[in-house]
């Protein structure tokens, strides 16, 4: 399968994520959109890794393993980020009874 398809899918996922972050006001949806962007990056990493080592894979089953390892790192970081982020959202809700990010403009002060 040509690499272009993977790239198109990744771009589509990323753009959906960006637009979601920019336009939505619900903190949980913004969070999910951030996850979308991260996974777009993950998809590209795996795809490029596979493509880059297409010839090497015939001799060595482990070739191109680095790109795939990065994906696991990103997943770990994303999981950590989610746990912190959800905790913030919980606190936000307890304080304001809303998860609307526009209520957070007090960050200015």
């Amino acid at each position, binding site marked *: 399968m040509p690499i272009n398809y993977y790239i198109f899918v990744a771009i589509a996922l990323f753009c959906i994520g960006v637009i979601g972050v*920019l336009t939505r*006001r619900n903190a949980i949806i913004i969070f999910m959109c951030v996850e979308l962007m991260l996974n777009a990056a993950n998809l590209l990493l795996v795809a490029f890794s596979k493509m880059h080592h297409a010839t090497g894979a015939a001799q060595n089953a482990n070739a191109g393993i680095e790109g795939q390892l990065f994906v696991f790192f990103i997943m770990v970081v994303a999981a950590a980020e989610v746990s912190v982020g959800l905790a913030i959202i919980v606190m936000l809700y307890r304080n304001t009874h809303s998860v609307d*990010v*526009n209520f957070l*403009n*007090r960050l200015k*002060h």
Partner: protein
Amino acid sequence: MSQLVYLVPLFPLLGFLLNGLLRKQLPKSVTSVIGSGVILASFIVSIILFFDVRAGHAGSVELFDFISFAKVHIPFAFQVDQLSVIFLLIITGVGFLIHLYSAAYMHEENSDHFARYFAYLNLFVFSMLLLVLGANYVIMFIGWEGVGLCSYLLIGYWFKNNNYNKAANKAFIMNRIGDLGFLLAMFWLLTKTGSLTYTDVFSNTSLLTPTDITGITILFFIAATGKSAQIPLYTWLPDAMAGPTPVSALIHAATMVTAGIYLIARSNVLFSLAAYTQDIIAIIGLATALVAASIALKQNDIKKVLAYSTVSQLGYMFLALGVGAYSAAVFHVMTHAFFKALLFLGSGSVIHAMSGEQDIRQMGGLSKKLKITYFTFLIGCLAIAGFPLFSGFFSKDAILAAAFEHNTLLYIGGLIGAIMTAFYMFRLLFITFNGQFRGTEDQRHHLHESPAAMTIPLIVLAVLSFAGGFIGIPEVFMHGGDKLSAFLSPIIPVHATTLSHSTEIMLMAIAAGSVIVTILFAWFRYKNYQPKETTGIGKFLENKWYVDEIYDAAIVRPVSWLGKFLERVVERSGIDWLVNLTGKSVQYGSRQLRLFQSGQVGNYVLLMIVGMVILFALQFFFKK
């Protein structure tokens, strides 16, 4: 024994520190005892040193390494020899009498200011002692700067009067002009001879070309014109009368102004090699003597007359230096220290009695109430006028004889100066002490003789003013009578006179005769003085040849105009504008940038994305 020399400047330094640091605690009596006592202690050590040197133990004492780099080695060393001990005796001896007198004269000051006054006086004496004791030009320069500073502090002692501050500034700035000459001469000497120690420099004069010697000596002479108030830098000295009267006596008669003479007498080896410089010195000295004497003829402030007479007498000393009669100059320094200190202290006593009045037109007839002051002042006048047998007669005669030997014109100029001196001094004496009292009734009731602490120094100085000349009796009268020249001969080669005895006696007779005639003339003219408006040339002299006005127009105003120009144009609309512009643009920029911080999370993310897109775009369009 000469190891004791460090004690001489140490005592006044201690006195300065004690009085200066404890001025709020010490009562006036303690302050005056400390202030005068340290000078007396220095005087006693100086006497010991004098006898030591007379026994033949001259030399230099090195205390510690002061500056040492590359091949240059400048020790902190003191020179104890014939020339420096003479100056030590003058400074500490006359200085002690003036300190004693000050204790009584300044009694109306409160104890804080009283101690400040004594601290300054002690610091001044300390600096002056460093100046004459240094074994190299650097130590001398430290003292040289020190006396400049102290004169500034003492002239501006009554700092609440702004005119006095201006006089202090004037003295300081004029001195600084001269100091520049001193510095340049030192650098020049150091480059050429590699040393600034007197003995090294004077034994290595072969390393100097005639141009070097002329240049160095002229620079030293410029330094001397600043400190010793010669044309063109003399105008600070009359203004320096703003300080308390004993200060005038100490700084502007007995010690500080003689620093220039000391510098040249000390460097006589160099100056003897520079005939051109010597001519300049003689001419400037004579011109100063005549100009200052002519101004003194018409002054009405008792201290101003004395100030101009100081300038004039300093001119005589420079005349002597210029014609190579160094020991005559030192002799005149010494006698002048006696009679000028006497005259200043006497005028202080008069001012004290007149409750601060300094204008002689308001005085008159004081001889009846102030007998001791009158008699001592009379002796001072006779001495300065060169009346036979008084000290000024011998020293002035030595100078005039040397001038005659050098050039008849110089002699005639000197003689005219001597006649003017006799005239203005006796004019001052007669107007002040004879005739009718012209002051107010209050002043008449208040007239009184000064206390003993003031009259005793006057009496001692009067005795010295009379007898001080006997250490330099000319060869004509007494074989081996000129003890001073003989004493100084290791430092200053004896000036062998070529004049025949009959010529010398004739010169003395002319000088003495003209002085006596002048005194009689002054007596008839001023015994019943009534003030009247001066006109014509008198007005010109009363206004001091308008020199201050000329300097003001030619130098002070252009410089202050330039300063104003630089302040308004370069400073305010140039540098300030640029600095303010920087501040304002940063302020404006941040006020605009502040709006970005809206607090809306969406905005932040949008900006982040926009930034990223821009970065990617740049990367895309401008790669390599």
